[in-house]
């Protein structure tokens, strides 16, 4: 009996060893879609009544890699002009035909959990006045889109430039605020999906 048991155990072990030595597959793993990575941000400033936009981009092809992003020069805006600003968020790791390519669309779909904050330095704009709502949520920013609860989103906003030459920076933060987005939630609430700063000139 005991001999049988022992040989049974040995057999099982041998079987184990066989499994062990086989079963090496060397297939390449499938790449993942990476819908959360933003590699390119495009700001389009369209003057009211025009269809020709002034665009600036920030490009970060390695996503979360250690290389910093690069700009395409300052956004050169005309003085005393009303602009509509629309923000595109692209994921160029995905194919342009894929759903994951246009992250702006996703942000729009989940507008209830997202909010853009804007902050600027220098006297760039006459409307809104001030320095934006990053430091203080109550400060003015002219949102032109809203979520399902009527709270602002910020993929599109409107701006009027100052009536004098100015240079400065425009910082844009996109916050992911699941369950915590309110009319008073601030730029320090939630997790940052985007935090990027552009140079702007007004002439």
């Amino acid at each position, binding site marked *: 009996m005991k001999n049988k048991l022992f040989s049974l155990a040995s057999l099982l072990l041998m079987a184990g060893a066989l499994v062990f030595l086989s079963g*090496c597959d060397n297939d390449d*793993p499938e790449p993942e879609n990476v819908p959360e990575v933003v590699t390119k941000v495009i700001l389009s400033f369209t003057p009211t009544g025009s269809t020709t936009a002034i665009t600036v981009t920030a490009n970060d092809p390695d996503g979360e890699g250690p290389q910093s992003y690069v700009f395409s020069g300052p956004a050169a805006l005309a003085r005393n002009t009303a602009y509509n600003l629309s923000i595109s968020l692209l994921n160029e790791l995905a194919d342009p035909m894929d759903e994951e390519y246009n992250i702006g669309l996703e942000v729009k779909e989940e507008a209830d959990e997202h909010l853009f904050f804007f902050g600027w330095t220098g006297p760039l704009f006459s409307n809104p006045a001030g320095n934006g709502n990053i430091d203080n949520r109550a400060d003015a920013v002219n949102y032109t889109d809203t979520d399902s609860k009527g709270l602002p989103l910020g993929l599109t906003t409107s701006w009027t430039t100052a009536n004098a030459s100015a240079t400065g920076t425009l910082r844009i933060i996109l916050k992911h605020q699941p369950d915590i987005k309110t009319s008073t939630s601030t730029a*320090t609430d939630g997790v940052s999906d985007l*935090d990027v700063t552009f140079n702007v000139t007004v002439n």
Partner: protein
Amino acid sequence: MQKSVRYLFTLAFGFSSLLSLAQNAQCILTLSGTVYDNENQPLAGATVVVLPNGPGTTTNNRGRFELKNLCEGNYQIEVRFVGFGSYRQEIRLGQNKQLTVSLEPDETALQEVVVEDHAPHVEATSTFNRLSGHELQETMGKPLGEALRQLAGVNTIQTGPAIFKPVIHGLHSNRVLILNNGIRQEGQNWGAEHAPEVDPFIASNLVVIKDAAAIKYGSDALGGVVLVNPAELPRDPGLGGQFHLIGASNNGSLITSGFVEGGSKKWKGLGWRAQGSIKKAGDSRAPEYVLSNTGFEEQSFSLAAAYHKANRGIDVFVSHFNTNIGILRGSATGNAEDLANAMEREPPQQTMPFTYDIKPPRQDVQHTLFKLNAHQTAGKNDYRLQYGFQLNVRSEFDQRRGSLVEIPALGFRLFTHTLDLEWQRQHHARFQSNWGINVMHQVNEKIDGTQTIPFIPNFTHNAIGLFALEKFTLTHWTVEAGLRADLRNYDVAGFDFQNQLYRSEIHFQNISGTVSAQRIVGKRGSFTSSLSSAWRPANLAELYSIGTHQSAAAIEYGLLLDEETTQVVPFENSGVKPEQALKWVSGFTYTGNRLTLDVAAYLNYIRHFIYLRPRGVTSSLRGVYPYFRYTQTNASFAGADLSVGYKLSERWSMNGKLSYLRARDVEENDFLIFIPANRADISIRYESGKKGVVSWYAESGLRWIAMQTRAPRVITPRQLIDATAQGIDLIAQNDSNFDFMAAPAGVQLLHAQVGITWQLKNVKLEARLAGENLTSESYREYTNRMRYYANETGRNFILGLHLSF
């Protein structure tokens, strides 16, 4: 006829006398036997010596020993084992003799032995500490890492109140080997938030071996080895079991665990055990606020069966472990600015009322183990063949956009097959060999559909190791020497930062060795010293990792990633070398009537030590991040551990423990980060003794955790961002190690417990009430990653009911 019978008798007697005379002349008598503990379980590793200066040996895994080539005469035999009183017997040896010895637990060392207590696979010359008996029972319900922290020299790296990793002499993760029931635990243990997937309820004792040697268990054990040893299965017919019910006030946890075991009447030698645990806990509470999303739930079970005959046996073990652990919600950060905000807030962001709900960020981990072991003793030889299969599935969920929240951001399946063959031979009473082969085949694959670039690549890993361990046992000395050769091969396929596929093949080979000795000093003391080399190949996370860990707003990337191009470089061109450690440990133990003492000092020098070194600041479109790269340096870890117990009287006893460690980056002349602070424990205990069926005890103690003064400089995330805004890269200017926050101040924590035991005829019932952090101290612990965001848990009361039959 009668005459002839008498004649024959005389002749036979005369012949045998002649024979015995011959034996006397040649000294060919054998004394063999078995050593059992008080629960009648065989005791492995017990020392058997012939006094005053005869030969000696140690018992094998089945408690057997054999002393050969003895001459006829009167001897005094001594049998001893740590934690047990030594046993002496006068014997007259006229012919081969069998001896059965039962050791009684040493009352000063183990006041309440609940389950049988032995440490298989521990060599006599190792420096080790053990958690068993009432000390183990008092940690019931706690994670493995937290339980092990009771031992001097063992600390923890934590991520919140539920994720503990054991740290031995300053080293953790891949540098600590965990043997779960004899099988090398293989999980995704590269991250500081990856706790060992082991339910400590399966163990009847936990052993920490502090030598780097561990020649038998394989490479990697630079810090030490943790053995999780279940009790032996019953061999005699009958049923037994234990049931535990434990509740805690701080996190509203309820934990139940139990087992039933038995031996078969029909099949003598067949024993079995079925064991299971269920744990559920809500949010922990700091003194001032709820630590939101720090609850956990865990379910695990194990089944074991063994069939033993006199000289052979097989055993089968299956276990499954399943856990879902929340990570503090306020620690979810997107970039350095978020980190700065999170660190500056108190209470942490998204602090909500107490709940049992667990939301992202969270971890979901399953671990399944199957083990089959066969062993046989044939004369002087002892064979052991063991196969193990493990499947580890880890999914980590983050706060992601929309429906992605349901999808793990990180997901891996790790399949591991291990095959161990071991041969032990008692050549001679004083000379024993132990040879073996360890083979491992491992496959890691990402769980498809995470929609993130995988943090580590897919890989196939094959490893083979050969070891030889020789042991010489003399009257007062035991000397051991061992050698190990390893070959490892990885076939890797992963994705870089740009989601481009890379493939590579990596080979490692190494030889390591150990020399150790134990010297018995007097009747109660022993001195051990060992010098051992160990090695560890860079693991795949250290080589290839890309991305950020849960609750760390920092980018980590591996040794093989080029900083300029962010592409993966071939291993051959990288100059990456395996870590090489040389560790010296010396210890002295003394077990007296009143005083027990265990002191050990160590020095561990590690060449090519791999750690995350700050490299710079990067601005991605998600914001500013510091980034760290795995780097190699030379590091030293030196320290001492002390455990001392003193019996003041029959009823009163005192205990003290001290862990002291100094670690340093020798090459850069810098401090290393997350090195556990020094600490000391002192406690006083009263035992009522047995009064009828009832006995009780009360204990109170103080734990002192020092401030870690040997910590790197501090750069707060705010300083980093402000400097970056001005175009200054603080890290590139000076890339010495830094921490985001200064090391927290030291703290004293008061705890107390009372327990009562009813020992009825066949049933033992115990109740225990314990209080932790009684003064509800607000503090932070240096090696808890939650310290950037929140205080440690406040006061906690634990009520436990334990039933054994």
